[in-house]
């Protein structure tokens, strides 16, 4: 059983999606039950995977028992296991939230949601670049339909742009893969790393392929010139869908980290310098752009979307340095920023219900009494702004101190701190408008109760702001071990390709 652990987080949501389609005739309650069972099993499987991966070895699962590099493998290291756990936790909370009634606003919500988890988990766990493309497409196809869930012109408008852009991105991904296969003769990540060091390859073509690949990941991660789609798409999506989407930018970031650490870095002199000089300035520009966008955001969900963009920019600083200390800090930052941004998306809906026509716009509205919502918003906002003693502060502190000795510390520090201030101002202004600036003469709006599902989901997502700070030491230690493992590509290559990797027979290509 242990050797099949790596595929469980992928199989569980896939099986659940099929079961939910079969159980459609039994009503939405049956689909919800299957979905929650799948979410719980998924969390258990991901926890198990984290425990197995933390033993130190890379778990390799050869699909169909075809050994690498000829077959497709799943390769689970500590980073992949941690991302699987984060996906499982986030999707469970979002699903619980959606079960309060959002899932009945359109058709096929539950199977699509499970397929989206299927794609996300696959993208994190796979060790093959073409398989990564396939899981990207599974994830995107489900996300296209989920984005449109609930209807309305804003969603159609955002969806059209999102779909068109991602289809163009997929075409670019395939071109990159074709060039990589044409120049290296392999698409297995470990084998790509090995082949990049081998003599006799067309290094110019391989470099171009790697840059294209990184450009595609940057589109998913929303690096600045490719990030204009994000705020519209995320702000238009329904609350639980937007919460799940928060992790989609992280797929791009983790892919860049992984490709950089495993394939590009060790192949000295040919591909190490691919990210130099351009990634840090663009990432910093993304942070500034996101901070300005957050200041200008008219509604809470827009603000949350800009915060997602800001955290993506912050995380994209890390791959350029290829140091395990920086990567470890980035991993901690990734965990907390994902959960906090998702919380803000989920909070926007019950707040909007209580303000009637004003919804979640930052305008003085009717009086409402919801101390728990206000407290949850305060916790999430303080963590997002990076105020002590919350996890957001620790994440930013770790990142800043890890970057202190890097060559561009001055630029990174000033941009991160100033943008942090801007984000804090935006959140403070937004929160005081939402909760304090009230018009007493306006009649209060009759709002549906928050309900236990939505309350539990918000609690699940907001509690890490405190828990990740309380248990920062074990989490940061795990992140440090994951980063050290990520930056030791030889172990990864040995685990995937086996001891005979030098003797793999290769045909001569014309």
């Amino acid at each position: 059983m242990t050797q099949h652990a790596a595929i469980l987080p992928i199989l569980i949501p896939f099986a659940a999606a099929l079961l939910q389609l079969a159980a459609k005739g039994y009503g939405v309650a049956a689909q919800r039950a299957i979905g929650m069972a799948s979410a719980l099993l998924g969390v258990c499987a991901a926890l198990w995977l984290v425990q197995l991966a933390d033993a130190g070895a890379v778990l390799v699962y050869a699909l169909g028992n075809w050994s690498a590099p000829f077959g497709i493998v799943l390769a689970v290291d500590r980073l992949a296991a941690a991302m699987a756990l984060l996906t499982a936790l986030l999707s469970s909370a979002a699903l619980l939230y959606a079960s309060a009634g959002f899932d009945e606003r359109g058709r096929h919500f539950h199977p699509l949601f499970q397929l989206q988890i299927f794609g996300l988990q696959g993208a994190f766990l796979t060790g093959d670049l073409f398989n990564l493309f396939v899981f990207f497409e599974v994830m995107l196809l489900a996300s296209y339909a989920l984005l449109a869930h609930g209807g309305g012109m804003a969603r159609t408008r955002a969806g059209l742009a999102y779909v068109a852009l991602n289809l163009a991105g997929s075409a670019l991904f395939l071109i990159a893969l074709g060039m990589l296969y044409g120049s290296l003769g392999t698409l297995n990540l470990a084998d790509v790393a090995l082949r990049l060091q081998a003599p006799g390859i067309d290094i110019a073509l391989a470099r171009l392929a790697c840059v294209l690949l990184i450009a595609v990941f940057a589109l998913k991660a929303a690096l600045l010139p490719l990030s204009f789609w994000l705020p519209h798409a995320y702000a238009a999506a329904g609350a639980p869908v937007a919460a799940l989407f928060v992790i989609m930018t992280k797929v791009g970031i983790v892919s860049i980290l992984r490709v950089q650490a495993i394939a590009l870095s060790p192949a000295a002199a040919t591909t190490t310098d691919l990210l130099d000089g351009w990634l840090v300035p663009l990432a910093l520009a993304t942070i500034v752009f996101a901070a300005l966008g957050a200041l200008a955001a008219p509604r809470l969900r827009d603000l949350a979307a800009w915060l997602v963009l800001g955290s993506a920019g912050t995380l994209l600083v890390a791959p350029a340095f290829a140091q395990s200390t920086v990567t470890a800090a980035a991993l901690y930052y990734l965990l907390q920023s994902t959960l906090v941004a998702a919380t803000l998306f989920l909070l926007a809906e019950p707040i909007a219900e209580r303000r009637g026509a004003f919804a979640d716009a930052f305008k003085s509205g009717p009086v409402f009494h919801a101390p728990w919502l206000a407290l949850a918003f305060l916790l999430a906002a303080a963590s997002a702004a990076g105020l002590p003693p919350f996890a957001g502060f620790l994440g930013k502190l770790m990142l800043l101190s890890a970057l202190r000795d890097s060559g561009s510390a001055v630029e990174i520090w000033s941009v991160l701190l100033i943008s942090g201030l801007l984000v804090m101002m935006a959140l403070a202004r937004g929160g005081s408008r939402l909760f304090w600036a009230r018009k007493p003469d306006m009649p209060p709006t009759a709002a549906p109760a928050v309900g236990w599902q939505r309350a539990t989901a918000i609690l699940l997502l907001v509690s890490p702001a405190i828990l990740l700070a309380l248990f920062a030491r074990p989490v940061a230690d795990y992140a440090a071990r994951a980063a050290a493992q990520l930056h030791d590509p030889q172990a990864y290559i040995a685990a995937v390709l086996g001891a005979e990797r030098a003797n793999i027979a290769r045909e001569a290509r014309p």
Partner: protein
Amino acid sequence: MEALLSSAIGILTACGVFLILRARTFSLVLGLTLLSYAVNLFLFASGRLQMGVPPLIRNGAAYTDPLPQALVLTAIVIGFGMTAYLVMLALRALAESGNDHVDVKEKL
């Protein structure tokens, strides 16, 4: 053969990009379709071009790389599904706004 294939890929890509940059959903769909055709041909070429050779390894006989063919097949299936969804979305945008502008402007 090389000249024919590479110029076909180039012309398809150029037409695809031109159509994508138009602000109408119909030309957007056509442009993305042309782009995916170009990409599929490009993937084929990544296994080197050979005429009249099967993708099977037999004793001593010439063969062509079977992997790009599998990749192209996967890419075609995925691209087909995506295009179908995009067409449905474009139709919905047309029904909601009454025109086929990609920014889905409000009805006047």
